[in-house]
């Protein structure tokens, strides 16, 4: 004998509607939680344009991409020197032209924090690295592009240096801090160099 009474059609329909509403609410909640979960992503903020830091940042970026992680590298302040390609002077103010002349033209010309010796140090390091089978900063940048690493130059830093979009290395985009923080917030690893 059944202990529970057989529900009426109306009561069953009301209960079903309640359950459907609850499932919808939970689905929304799961989607919301999933959107906030960190993904397998590395976010790097590179504020230094020094040979050692840029090299390390790009080595980590390339390795993470090889590990199938999504990678975003945000280059801010002196870091933008790593993602420039040449110098353009047209349409710039006198100060911007001076800054353009003084900054490093591209990643192959970065100065090192130690043993720089007027640029001789990084040249020697680069040569040694090539002899020892170690990827140079320029090679690492090229490989990063090949691996689909997102390279972003900070728009405000570009403004400070009077750097134009046509001076950025191929494949390098620009973005603001909120966009980077949005991505960093969803990353399983975030580092600043």
């Amino acid at each position, binding site marked *: 004998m059944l202990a529970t009474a057989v529900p009426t059609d109306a009561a069953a329909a009301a209960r079903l509607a309640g359950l459907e509403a609850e499932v919808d609410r939970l689905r929304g909640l799961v989607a919301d939680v999933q959107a906030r979960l960190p993904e397998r992503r590395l976010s790097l903020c590179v504020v230094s344009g020094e040979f050692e830091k840029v090299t390390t940042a790009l080595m980590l970026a*390339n390795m993470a991409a090889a*590990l199938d992680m999504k990678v975003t590298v945000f280059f801010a302040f002196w870091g933008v020197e790593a993602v420039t390609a040449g110098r353009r002077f047209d349409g710039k103010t006198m100060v911007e032209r001076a800054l353009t002349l003084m900054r490093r033209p591209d990643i192959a010309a970065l100065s090192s924090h130690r043993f720089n010796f007027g640029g001789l140090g990084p040249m020697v390091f680069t040569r040694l690295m090539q002899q020892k*089978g170690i990827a140079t900063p320029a090679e690492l940048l090229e*490989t990063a592009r090949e691996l689909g690493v997102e390279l972003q130059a900070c728009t405000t830093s570009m403004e400070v240096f009077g750097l134009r979009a046509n001076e950025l290395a191929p494949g390098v985009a620009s973005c603001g801090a909120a966009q980077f923080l949005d991505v960093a917030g969803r990353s399983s690893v975030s580092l600043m160099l």
Partner: protein
Amino acid sequence: MPTDEPVSVTALDCTGLRCPMPIVKLGLAIRPLAAGARVEVRADDAAFEPDLRAWARQTGHAIVELEAGTVTRALVEKA
């Protein structure tokens, strides 16, 4: 169950390359391959064996064979 289906094996020589390039080259080599395809990689980088194990853990690809030595030889299979 053993199968007679031929498994494609891509040879990859990473000797002379230093970290992170052996794993980066391996990552690039395995990307276009189909699941089940194999890559035979050789490398003499000091960090290669532990890096390869970390790579397998992170990506889910399998290390089928591993012979450590002056030149480490590994056979990996795409997941």
